[in-house]
């Protein structure tokens, strides 16, 4: 009996030690992967610096590899040497990493902090938890900006996505992303397809041809971009009249660089960006990164990030805490893609549909571009 009791006691001890990880069991350094530029700066200021201040002795390095994170993680996994601890990716990449077993599945309620009012993390993030491996940080959108000084005299400034396809009313070049996603949906929408019918239509051969035909009406006026910085540059140089890019890039061109550019939010395409934890991390590194993740994705930290960049926090509870821009002192809420005035007509991008059809449509799109 005594022996059993003693055994039970030790088991209880190990269980306790197993759940409450102490600081000694955590690694002292982290490698965080992000996109670089002003976005990474906002993460550094809002999440990392406060965390490092709370945890002296811990160091962290940034790796600006998010653009090729999926390929690099796959290569690291094959080589059996994953050097990253936390990786910032867009939602569709998170889904693919999860599918490939390269990202760790999380228990959102257990691994993440609850909202200050006690709402569980999974409720606070709501529908934005599009994958079991993904912790969203921000809602961003791909939307249009246009040169205010290039609007033809006597014409209303463009206000609808279909103005992009109207060369008669708004002559000039456009810049669009060199990929089918978003462009095909916008084209169908402006060809008269109702929003809820866009994906069913795009699932058919005729629908794809219809979208390409609509894009074909402006094809020779389009500059195709592949990096987010290109459209602001093209707009600033007056190379294009209007162009799509991430809303934060346009914000900095307008508010920080004072370019004669204005936003056109109609049919902006929402997307998410967030963290994934690579699968198969050793226990000490995992403990450290989970500790950081819990801190960096709590309500206050997500709201803090919005003081540096115009992307909407992914938690519902963070929205009321969004304040002014840290340096410019302007109110940030009206610049958020999620602001009701901006989000009157939005396009919800279907991750599942694109995960299935991306390869096929991309081949068709690229063949169409090359012709």
């Amino acid at each position, binding site marked *: 009996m005594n022996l059993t009791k003693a055994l039970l006691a030790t088991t209880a001890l190990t269980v306790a030690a197993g759940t409450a990880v102490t600081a000694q069991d955590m690694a002292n350094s982290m490698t965080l992967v992000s996109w670089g530029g002003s976005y990474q700066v906002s993460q550094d200021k809002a999440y990392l610096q406060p965390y490092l201040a709370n945890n002296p002795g811990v160091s962290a390095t940034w790796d600006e590899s998010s653009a090729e994170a999926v*390929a690099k993680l796959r290569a690291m996994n094959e080589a059996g040497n994953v050097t990253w601890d936390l990786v910032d990716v867009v939602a569709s990449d998170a889904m693919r990493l999860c599918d490939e077993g390269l990202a760790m599945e999380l228990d959102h309620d257990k691994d993440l902090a609850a909202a200050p009012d006690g709402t569980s993390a999974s409720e606070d993030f709501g529908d934005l938890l599009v994958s079991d491996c993904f912790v969203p940080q921000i809602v961003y959108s791909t939307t249009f900006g246009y040169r205010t000084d290039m609007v033809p005299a006597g014409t209303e400034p463009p206000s609808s996505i279909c103005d992009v396809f109207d060369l008669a009313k708004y002559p000039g070049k456009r810049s669009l992303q060199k990929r089918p996603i978003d462009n095909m949906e916008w084209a169908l929408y402006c060809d008269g397809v109702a929003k809820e019918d866009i994906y069913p239509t795009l699932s058919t051969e005729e629908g794809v041809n219809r979208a390409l035909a609509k894009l074909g009406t402006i094809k020779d006026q389009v500059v195709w971009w592949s990096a987010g910085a290109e459209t602001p540059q093209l707009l600033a140089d007056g*190379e294009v009249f209007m162009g799509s890019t991430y809303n934060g890039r346009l914000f900095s061109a307008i508010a920080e660089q004072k370019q004669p550019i204005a936003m056109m939010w109609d049919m902006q395409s929402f997307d998410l960006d967030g963290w994934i934890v690579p699968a198969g991390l050793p226990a000490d590194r995992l403990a450290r990164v989970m500790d950081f993740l819990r801190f960096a994705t709590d309500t206050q930290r997500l709201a803090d990030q919005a003081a540096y960049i115009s992307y909407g926090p992914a938690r519902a509870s963070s929205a009321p805490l969004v304040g002014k821009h840290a340096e410019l002192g302007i109110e940030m809420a009206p610049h958020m893609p999620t602001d009701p005035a901006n989000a009157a007509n939005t396009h919800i991008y279907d991750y599942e549909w694109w995960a299935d059809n991306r390869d096929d449509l991309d081949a068709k799109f690229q063949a169409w571009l090359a012709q």
Partner: protein
Amino acid sequence: MSDTTHTGPVLAADGTPLKRSLRRALRAQKMRALALIAPLLIFVLVAFIAPIADMLFRSVENQIVGNTLPMTVEELRDWDATDTPDEQVFRALFFDLFLAAEAKEHTKLGSRLNYEQSGISSLFRTTGRDVDKIGKVFEKALKEIDPGFGEAQFWYDMMSGGAGAESNERLMSNQIGRLEQLEVSSFSGDTGFMPGAAMSEILPNTARAYSAFAAFTHFVDADVVAEKKPWEAVHAALAIDLEDPATATALAGYDGPGADALRRAAAADLPPVGMKAALIASNKDWQRVDFWQVIRTYSPPYTTGYFLNAVDMEKTPQGIALRSADERIYGILFKRTMFMSLVITISCILLGYPVAWLMANLPARKANLLMILVLLPFWTSLLVRTSAWKVMLQQQGVINDVLVWLGLVADENRLIMINNQFGTIVAMTHILLPFMILPMYSVMQTIPPSYLRAAKSLGANNWTAFWRVYFPQSVPGIGAGSILVFILAIGYYITPEIVGGTTGTFISNRIAYHISTSLNWGLAAALGTILLAAVLILYWAYDRIVGIDNVKLGG
């Protein structure tokens, strides 16, 4: 002379046969030489030969289908490909998918097959979530018959046949081997479980499913088999075994652990096993014959699929066929890459030849200055030079501004010189020019000026002297420069990406896309292999036509 008539081998000074001693000395010398080049040899092997071999392998490798769905692939062999497969195939699929979903390998297979057929990715993802539910029905029914079916130890005893029972080692090692293939790793050691021989005779499906569960629990989850409740799939397997009336008969003569519960389960009415209906209810795409055809077509461990895709072809049930016109892209890109590389090489020859000639014939001081001018852009970052061309060539750029200011071009008709083939050719010609000039220069330097003077003194005019005497001697330099520029050009990636727009991109841009965005590494490898083969063929053709001995990089 006749003193040395003994017939034995010639001996060295130390008494060993001369032949052997010579060989030893030579070997030592060879080893020393090898040791000297060893760092380079190892570097080339590791950094060059191995990646190329890996690329060649990846372009045909396709083991994931057979490793993830081994039983399904086996069952599909007899399928006539006209209608949705029968229940037998769906049962195999259920067990394969269950294990794959536990190992989280099913979505990987989904993304692999999605390259061939859109929609398979979500088919595997959604069904992977549902397989637990499909098996749950049987677990519930069995537990109602005997609560023992809900207990880990009960199952363990029943399946191992109790202590001292004869066991079926082959079944267990088969399942471990299967798990090794699925997880692409190797496991050694004992799982702590052996299926009983009697059980695997009476309940073959259950024994197999439980052994798979045991292997997974021990090796992947690192848990004790006897303490874990078996998967829903094991219960489903038992339901399948009990469906067979012969099982009840066999059970009548069985008296191992769990015999009583099994006999009652055999006598009871278990829910009917309908994996086909259940999987189609989970996702109706399982009815699609074309999806099943893709699974069967890509089931062998090696495939030509990636290479076919890389030349705009595909495998169809009717055989190999050209892709539909709106999906053909690689043919266009390969042709364009070759054509533009050729144009760039010719432009480099035309622009580089006079410069090289000047450098070779000017006094040393001026030649050095010219050399620095040639090398200066060479030392500037590639990205900076490419971006500079953007500033120069764009519609609101320097050249257009000057042309408009001069009145040569109307403001609303500014020339389009970038984001097209023209932009790519201009920027790449500029970037690759030093690779043409330098070999030309080093060859021209070795041509004695006295030859030209001799030609002229024999009555040749300037042109004849140049064309008949000087030019033929400079051809090796042109050859070397051309090979260098052409081979660099067809693999170029970053410049076409930045200034190429849609009509000026190369095949390498597509390879990069498949490496980093679509993750179709097999296709990227096949495209890369074709590009490599194209270079080798061109090199061979060059050797036949011009002769590789005529290439000189210097003196």
